[in-house]
């Protein structure tokens, strides 16, 4: 029964990690860049929900209505300016630039909003849960986040496979040059992919702010989880991302079962094992590693 509890809470956590990771996966798949500021973007989204949204007299639960479109726009702009400029140089530059951005964001938040933790107020919803039996509780919030992440992943999958923009995104990620020869403005497509990635990371940031609390340095650890999720699941596979998130969640809960200190370490160890045995991830193709 204890193990069932570990698995249930692992799966719930996994949904959240998948939501966090799908933007990272998308940006790597299409632009071949690893956005080291990914976690910090989520924190900024959470802070926006805490500090900006109340100005619109909107309950914080509904903050995503404002924050997600805002971030979609931000994603497009950042991609067309800063990220595109670094891509035009080389992959090395994208790493340095996104890392620099991450440190700058973290410290800006620290300067403006202090090191105090912030959380998104969702009223009584936070305490509500569904009791499966006398040891297993599933909180409404965790379940909602899991459902949201499955819906988001399914919607992304559908968008990529059924729409003409989605087709162009896949074409650009296959062969950027050939896509240009088909009349595709790859910079614009990059912008759209980035916009989607930022929208999902905004959702993840808000979910995170509802779950626990955010502080300026939360971004780093979240990037770590998102990255582990992507690598475990395999690059370029959205459903792999979901499985990766769930496996990471279970591993962490498994570690936590022995000692709270081992939570993150157990996830890291799973990540390193996957890396050693199957570096392309469980559902990934072998070619994308270089």
């Amino acid at each position, binding site marked *: 029964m204890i193990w069932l509890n570990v698995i249930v809470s692992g799966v719930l956590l996994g949904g959240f990690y998948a939501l966090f990771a799908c933007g990272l996966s998308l940006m790597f798949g299409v632009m071949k860049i690893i956005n080291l500021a990914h976690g910090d973007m989520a924190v900024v989204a959470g802070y926006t929900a805490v500090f900006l949204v109340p100005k619109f007299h909107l309950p914080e639960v509904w903050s995503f209505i404002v924050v997600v479109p805002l971030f979609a726009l931000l994603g497009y702009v950042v991609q067309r300016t800063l990220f595109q400029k670094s891509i035009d140089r080389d992959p090395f530059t994208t790493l340095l630039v996104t*890392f620099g951005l991450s440190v700058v964001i973290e*410290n*800006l938040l620290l300067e403006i909003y202090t090191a105090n933790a912030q959380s998104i107020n969702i009223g009584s919803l936070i305490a509500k849960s569904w009791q499966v039996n006398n040891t297993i509780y599933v909180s409404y919030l965790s379940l909602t986040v899991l459902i949201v992440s499955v819906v988001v992943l399914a919607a992304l999958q559908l968008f990529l496979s059924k729409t003409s923009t989605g087709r162009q995104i896949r074409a650009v990620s296959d062969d950027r040059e050939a896509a240009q020869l088909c009349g595709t403005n790859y910079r614009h497509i990059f912008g759209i992919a980035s916009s989607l990635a930022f929208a999902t990371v905004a959702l993840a940031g808000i979910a995170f702010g509802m779950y626990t609390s955010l502080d300026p340095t939360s971004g780093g650890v979240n990037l770590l989880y998102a990255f582990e999720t992507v690598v475990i699941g395999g690059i370029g596979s959205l459903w792999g991302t979901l499985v990766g998130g769930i496996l990471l969640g279970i591993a962490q809960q498994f570690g936590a079962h022995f000692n709270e200190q081992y939570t993150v*370490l157990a996830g890291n160890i799973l990540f390193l094992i996957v890396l050693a045995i199957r570096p392309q991830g469980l559902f990934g193709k072998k070619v994308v*590693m270089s």
Partner: protein
Amino acid sequence: MSVEDLTPVDQSITVKRNQIPVAYTLGGVVALAVFFTWAPWILPASDVTILMNFFILVIMATMWNLLAGYAGMVSIGQQGFIGLGAYATLYFAIKGMDPFFAIPLAVIVCAVIAFPVTFLLFRLRGGYFAVATWVVANSAMLIIGSIAFFGGGTGHYLPGLTNLSFKVLNHDTYLAAWFVALVVVVATYILLRSRLGLVLSSVRDNEVASRSSGAKVTSTRRTVFIVAAAGCGAAGAVLAISQPFIQLGNEFNLQWAAEMLFASMIGGLGTIEGPILGCVIFFVLQQSLQNYGAWYLIIFGALAVGVAIWQPRGIWGFVRDTFHFELLPVGYRVSGAGVTNEARSAMRTVRWLRRTQKTPLEQDDKSP
């Protein structure tokens, strides 16, 4: 292919190593060395502390530059080795050793740990490598943190220093930082002028070609990674003595990675002088903005981003390429019309072969 076949027939191409007479460079270095060794006796204690922190950052930045600037490995997990170096020092000190004597041992510990780690990390490239180094650093921190012997999350006081007065401790720690920095910079310089430096520059020009021509690319990378780990371990050991309360979050702080990265980036990757210049800029910024919280780091980071995009050779690289001026040249400079990267790399190889084969042709080490 004989060596002679590759010598430049075009007279517009010249091959030279040094623009400044070696004697001047050497003289300058000796004068600086004397000054920095004397510094604790002539400067106030607060300045000595700043200089000490400066040298610790010089060690880190030089090591990061060796990793990323010369070997193309972007690591954001070097703080792992800084932490391991600090905790190794703590371990030996608890066991009764003088912390200063523990520094070389901490270096060895980090090198030994780095070796197996490379087999895991070298399966990845680029961004994946970068984040994986961070995962490794994070894991090292969590493992150390779970060991009660080291005080867990609360930290541990570094024993063996209590019989020293503050002034003496400050002097000794400063001297340790300065000497380690000197050793690290000189060792990096020698390393890059050796065969290893040659392999690195050939990989930089064309990895596939240098692999196929028999260069041991992976083992060279491994050596560089281990050296960088050892160097960061030394920095961590000195850092531990300078604090001297050892705390998990301090030693394994991601901020170390940020500072070393920004300093080398701004100063100029791929030069010996650049990262040192970057550290100078960092400390000038930090000191002049010390009343404004984290703004120094925000400005430093933004500056690094700007440099990465608009001036990727960094400030020193810009100076070098604009004025054709180098203090510590590690490669040969081939100049003239119609010289391709391939030709440059080929000529470097030729020169190196000549040097090692000790042919009577050897003249290029003298300045024109």
